[in-house]
């Protein structure tokens, strides 16, 4: 089992803490001149997304996490798994609902995503920052209603529901920011 000692610590290093894969987000050395060194470290738990902090005596070591990140393309969903492919190598990965998480709302064939794998298995999917999706259902807006405030719900081709301006109609293709889940503009 590979391990890192505190001298290896730097932002982005992937380690196992309490059984979960974590990434270092901050590493601060605390050391009196001729005294013992300590590292105050902040981590992001890659499984739960939560941040945690822990301090290590500098003689300690932690287990390395086998984490890989790949650019992948979304292929299709077979009802149980979401299937992705690495465009360079044609390697395919099947990710379950937990790994896909919220990204499921935005996935359309060929969407360019980032997949994090832990010990070779999909851990999480990040969709592209912006996606273009067609409105499949929304109530008609009033004729001539172009710049008024107010919004209405719309359902997109992936099944996601977003708030849209009143002038949006069924069939419109919208640009959505996946990080906020908000309408940006018509595509």
């Amino acid at each position, binding site marked *: 089992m590979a391990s890192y000692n505190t001298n290896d610590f730097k932002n982005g290093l992937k380690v196992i803490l309490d059984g979960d894969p974590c990434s270092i987000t901050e590493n*601060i*050395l*605390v*050391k*009196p001149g*001729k005294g013992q060194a300590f590292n105050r470290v902040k981590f992001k738990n890659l499984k739960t997304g939560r941040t945690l902090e822990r301090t*290590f*005596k500098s003689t*300690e070591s932690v287990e390395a996490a086998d984490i890989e990140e790949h650019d992948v393309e979304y292929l299709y969903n077979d009802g149980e798994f979401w299937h992705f492919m690495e465009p360079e190598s044609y390697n395919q990965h099947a990710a379950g609902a937990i790994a896909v998480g919220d990204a499921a709302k935005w996935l359309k064939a060929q969407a360019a995503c980032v997949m994090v794998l832990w010990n070779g298995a999909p851990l999480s999917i990040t969709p592209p920052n912006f996606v273009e999706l067609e409105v499949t259902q929304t109530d008609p807006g009033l004729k001539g209603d172009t710049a008024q405030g107010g919004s209405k719900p719309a359902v997109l081709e992936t099944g996601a529901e977003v708030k849209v301006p009143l002038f949006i109609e069924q069939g419109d293709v919208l640009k959505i920011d996946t990080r906020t889940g908000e309408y940006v503009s018509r595509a």
Partner: protein
Amino acid sequence: MTIDRNAKWRPTASLKAIKTRARMLKSIRAFFDERGVLELETPLFATGAATEPNLSSFCSGYPATSTQQTLYLNTSPEFAMKRFLAAYGEPAYQICKSFRADELGPNHNPEFTLLEWYRPGLCMFELMDEIEQLIMRVLQNPAGFTRLSYADAFIQVAGFDPHVATAADCRRCARKFGIEIPVGMADDGSTDVNDWLDWLLTQHVLPGLRQDSFTFLHDFPRTQSSLAELHQDEGGRTVAARFELYYGELELANGFVELRDTDEQRARFEHDNKVRSRNGQVLVQIDDYLLAALRHGMPACTGVALGLDRLLMLLCGAADIREVLMFPWDRI
């Protein structure tokens, strides 16, 4: 052409900080010149290293010859300057680079600048007076200075006497004040009490001092004597004639009444290597030239090493050492 201000070929220090460093160096040289203290230049390479287990030296072997010798980059100019003192005995200072591997952080860069000076004939408190004068000269309008014994600082802020405390006492103190206990600090008392004291010093005692002024802590535990003489403190305890200067929590300087007894110095070096061996650390070559110089005889003196990058951080109001370094460790 776009200007990428984060491009790694660029300095991280601003031009203002770079010019402030130049002015600071000029002011320091004027200070010592007025006082008749001689400026020295000694080698950065040495065949002997600092033995302390908490210091890690860079080493280099020179290549392409039939015998390879380990050469170390100095963690401070101390050994060479003491050889000068044994030969000529004059008060002297040096401004030079020093190197400590594995020390990288908001206040640390593995390559850094020390101002180190030695005063034959001055006692510890007289040297502190001179340090205050130097800082007042450089900072122009600095905050006040307080002197506190290491024991009093712990007693006042943490409620126990560090000279008699055990690892268990320290652990109890950490629990009492809700101080996080680092991974690696054992429950069973096997962790050295000095590791506990270092942790409590940085996490509880220093933050408990006035943050907007300077504090000298003096008379360290005898187990943290490094290259300092031992003496009796006011309470009759044997302590190290060692002091440190802090601005709030920021450590600025470390000073000693310098140890002159060769046998005691050799014994400390050998003890350090034994501790290194126990810890699974590399052993280092002991500096035999220093020991020979001590055997010849070094005048009674006090000395201090002051971190100039840290002093510059105060002068510039910098929160991170990168703001005062031209090219920190990730840009060389």
